[in-house]
């Protein structure tokens, strides 16, 4: 099965003083990035298998959820590229978001993921609806996203997400919480769209 050895080896190499401070030649920096990326990709599979194992109780209750095959995280989430979250929920699909807390205390944090639908309802694992908010992904940001997904992944994104969906997650220490995103029904409260105020320089 997948291992974390290649990531450990890449991390060991980048503890060289040139890698820490950025005093290596550019082609060496590129090699460091490549090694880390290869290690990360393999370690990601270990995490997916671990989540499948951790969530075994949940998958027994909901056998249609198969984390092992389908789970994926998003290393380019910072530039709003996350194909796993850009699922069209209007055709009856649900998006399952597993949030793992690697620290030893309970945390409440805001999750932000790119989405393509406007009418989304977020539920926690008990089915309780969670308040959420949509924020527009601005054109300037999408330009950055498109350029870098091509440059770093060699992938030209086919889906253009419209919004960041923000919701509050509560996660136990060294544990996980599960959130379900689905298409909102008529009586569901949909995410609040952000009010916008523009401060014109001339005003």
């Amino acid at each position, binding site marked *: 099965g997948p291992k974390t050895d290649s990531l450990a080896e890449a991390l060991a190499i980048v503890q060289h003083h040139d890698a820490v401070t950025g*005093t290596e*030649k550019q082609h060496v920096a590129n090699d460091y990035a490549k090694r880390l990326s290869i290690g990360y990709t393999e370690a990601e599979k270990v995490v997916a298998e671990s989540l499948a194992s951790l969530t075994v109780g949940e998958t027994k209750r909901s056998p249609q959820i198969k984390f092992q095959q*389908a789970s994926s995280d998003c290393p380019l989430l910072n530039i709003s590229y996350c194909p796993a979250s850009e699922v069209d929920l209007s055709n009856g699909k*649900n998006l399952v978001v597993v949030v793992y807390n690697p*620290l030893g205390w309970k945390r409440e944090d*805001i999750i932000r993921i790119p989405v393509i639908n406007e009418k989304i309802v977020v539920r926690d694992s008990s089915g309780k609806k969670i308040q959420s908010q949509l924020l527009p992904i601005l054109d300037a940001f999408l330009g*950055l996203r498109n350029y870098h997904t091509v440059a770093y992944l060699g992938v030209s994104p086919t889906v253009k997400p419209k919004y960041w969906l923000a919701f509050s997650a509560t996660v136990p220490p060294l544990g996980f919480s599960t959130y379900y995103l689905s298409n909102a029904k008529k009586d569901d409260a949909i995410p609040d769209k952000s*009010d*916008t105020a523009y401060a014109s320089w001339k005003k």
Partner: protein
Amino acid sequence: SDTVTVGLKNLKLVYSMREGKLTQYINSRSKVKESLEQAFKYYAGYGNDGTETAQASGAYIFRPNDSPSPITPNRKSPLTVFRGPIVHEVHQQINSWIYQTTRLYKGKEHAEVEFIVGPIPIDDGVGKEIATEIKTNLASDKTFYTDSNGRDFIERVRDYREDWNLEVNQPVAGNYYPINLGIYLKDKSKEFSILVDRAVGGSSIKDGQLELMVHRRLVQDDSRGVGEPLNETVCIHDNCTGLTVLGKYYFRIDPVGEGARWRRSFGQEIYSPLLLAFTESEGHWG
């Protein structure tokens, strides 16, 4: 109104509409109220003029040519505010290559600033080192604190070394320190802290002010061994542009003596963020 206030509960930030910039920090719970100004600036890198004594700014050496140049915001771009029940955001396009979003989240008493900087233009042949600074009125008396490899904080005194008499030849570079976790300063009543999501350089060049160097692009080798200028690019096939960086820092002002808890616990949360995984399912959520 001349001002716009953002923030969901205890923490509020006030922006001047006329100038399009941050002016005040208010925490109604801790009763902290402080004037604040945030801006970008750049240090032009010292160029290697070919003489033996010249020392160019490069990968190893930060050597600014002169005092920093302010990067004035583009007056054609408005300041945009998004408000909702989870987060308030303020978007600012500073110029064609600097974009900034400031976020105040529900239930949090710090501000998150996300910066997108790059590609740094070097068409004029001048390398540039970009810093963001926040000015307050705290009387910090030349003293500030930076983390030691993400652990303890070490006291730094501007233009002073404990072990020898310092001759100040580099008033900026000589006071820069590596920032892995954060930097803070204090006076008799308040302390102002910044935490970072990555290793950067940082300093307090004036009392009450903190700055972080967020990006650098230089045109000369500094002759310390690397043998090439610090000029990273991103390429699609043969078309290359200078690197764009996207990063975050977080700031907060506390009554004096109350900032350490946040620096320690939130610092851990930056270092170990929540890990997300996604999958799809069919049918009813349950």
